[in-house]
């Protein structure tokens, strides 16, 4: 059998992943037309390239339909409950850096810490009759983080895009999102809480702990890992 390796199917993440593998003697390329999601691997026998959306790679790893996959740590932790039992981190790839942060209006001069956010949430709820809304697509990560730190009286509202605009549009009071430079936040009059980020994430090579591997597959996997030095 061949080992299936899931790689993000487009953009800089794909190119940088190709580069990272290329530097280690495993060259990858897209095959067919630019629009066709197929690829080839050279340098190791028995490894098949599967091009997928980065957001689907956690699910495919957890289901065991791919053996290896490159995606962000943020997506793995958000999408997979009990993630460390289902996938193994083989290597951080050193790109795709992003911090998951909580942002509030920069006009909130009284809110810089989680303690402030908690107190502001309590006051907000009693003034407005509903819990302070935090717009995010990282529901699990943010909920776990806020529970861990004992923040109450907030609610998460789903936002799958343009999250930084929700405060101005009055659909949320605060946001939680991935940022690398903070530029979009500043442009939308938001600031980052002065706490450690909820999560520091980067592109990472994961191995599925549940995907079935026969002897030939195991050989290919070991050869690839040796070559990559992971």
């Amino acid at each position, binding site marked *: 059998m061949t080992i299936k390796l899931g790689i993000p199917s487009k953009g800089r993440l794909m190119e940088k992943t190709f580069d990272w593998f290329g530097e280690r003697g495993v060259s990858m390329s897209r095959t067919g037309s630019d629009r066709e999601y197929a690829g080839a691997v050279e340098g190791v026998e028995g490894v098949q390239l599967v091009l997928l959306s980065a957001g689907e790679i956690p699910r495919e790893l957890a289901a065991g339909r791919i053996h290896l996959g490159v995606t962000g740590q943020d997506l793995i932790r958000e999408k997979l409950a009990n993630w460390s039992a289902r996938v193994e981190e083989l290597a951080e790839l050193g790109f795709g850096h992003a911090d998951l942060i909580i942002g509030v209006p920069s006009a909130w*001069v009284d809110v810089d810490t989680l303690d402030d956010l908690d107190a502001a949430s*309590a006051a*907000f709820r009693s003034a407005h009759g509903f819990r302070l809304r935090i717009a995010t697509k990282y529901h699990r990560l943010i909920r*776990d983080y806020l529970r861990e730190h004992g923040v109450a009286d907030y609610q998460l509202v789903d936002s799958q895009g343009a999250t930084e605009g929700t*405060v101005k549009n009055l659909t949320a*009071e605060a946001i939680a999102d991935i940022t690398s430079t903070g530029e979009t936040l500043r442009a939308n009059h938001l600031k980052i809480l*002065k706490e450690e980020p909820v999560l520091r994430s980067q592109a990472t090579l994961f191995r599925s702990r549940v995907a079935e591997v026969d002897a030939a597959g195991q050989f290919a996997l070991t050869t690839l890992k040796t070559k990559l030095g992971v």
Partner: protein
Amino acid sequence: MVNRTETRAEALRLKSIFEAAGAQSVEMDILQPAEVLLDLYGEDIRGRAYVTSDALWGEQMLRPDFTVPVVQMHMNEGAEPACYTYAGEVFRQQEDAPNRANQYLQVGYEVFDRANSAVADAEVFSLIRQALGDLPLRAATGDIGLLMSAVAGLKTTEARKAALMRHIWRPRRFRWLLDRFSGRLEVPETRAALLSADDPHLSGGPMIGLRSKSEIDARIDALREDAAVSLISDAEIDLIDALLSVRESLPAALEHLRDIAVDMPSIEPAVERLALRMDAMSDRGEDLETLDFEASYGRTSMEYYDGFVFGFYDQSRADLPPVATGGRYDALTKVLGKGDAIPAVGGVIRPELLLGLERGEA
């Protein structure tokens, strides 16, 4: 493994014990409006319960427990005093403990009675313990009311007490607040800068969103007031720590708590309530020496309990959840009763676990 038919039969057997004790059998909807539970428990409940929705009724939750719907039913239509029993599935996500069941039967017994809380507490405890039969289970008890009284009696501002009271069930933030109010934690730099600024808004951006400038000003005023009042004394913090670390047999704990109450008179009424409850338990034939008391018991997992709390555990199986739990939830009836309130206490048993332990198959 215990099969479902056997579990159901065991649940009905347990329920009949509660019915024989005078409880009225009630049924509750499996789908509950999510809003009530979200308002009560906050966003955390989404990680513990199953939420679903439809276009007509909005968000619905598969009942994570019976207590809330039973209280609602009682507050809407119940006569007093009242006593209910039920048996049915509850649904809980188990992300952190994948080996635990995410749906299981609960059999419960709930008492709404204004007459004598100590007697009602003892009644619920004893009835549940007897229903558990001869299994050698460890009984843990506690009383959230002690900590609440201690907080209410602190020599500090109402605002600080309210902040601590709000986090009674979140030990980590509770501790953080205590440390800050007592000066054990330094004031964060950002706050120091805010409080010393002539015009705190100067550093801020344009006003956006629903939280208004006057709300921000109100919080700055509150922070200024708080910075001006004196710290909670080390002696008071030590007493709270002493209270929270009480963990021994029930009679020894009572003596210990009475010692603490000498320096902390605010907990005296709560300690005497504990003593009355112990008398009532003794009257029911409970051997108090065999019961553990832990002052911190029930602070993390039982959010609506505000008085007596208890749980029964198999000591050799730390991996298993408690076989039965319960407690007093007077405040919950007030929240759900829209102004009305009635003292209430209850408990639940997990029949599958009970049967499994009895057969050594859990």
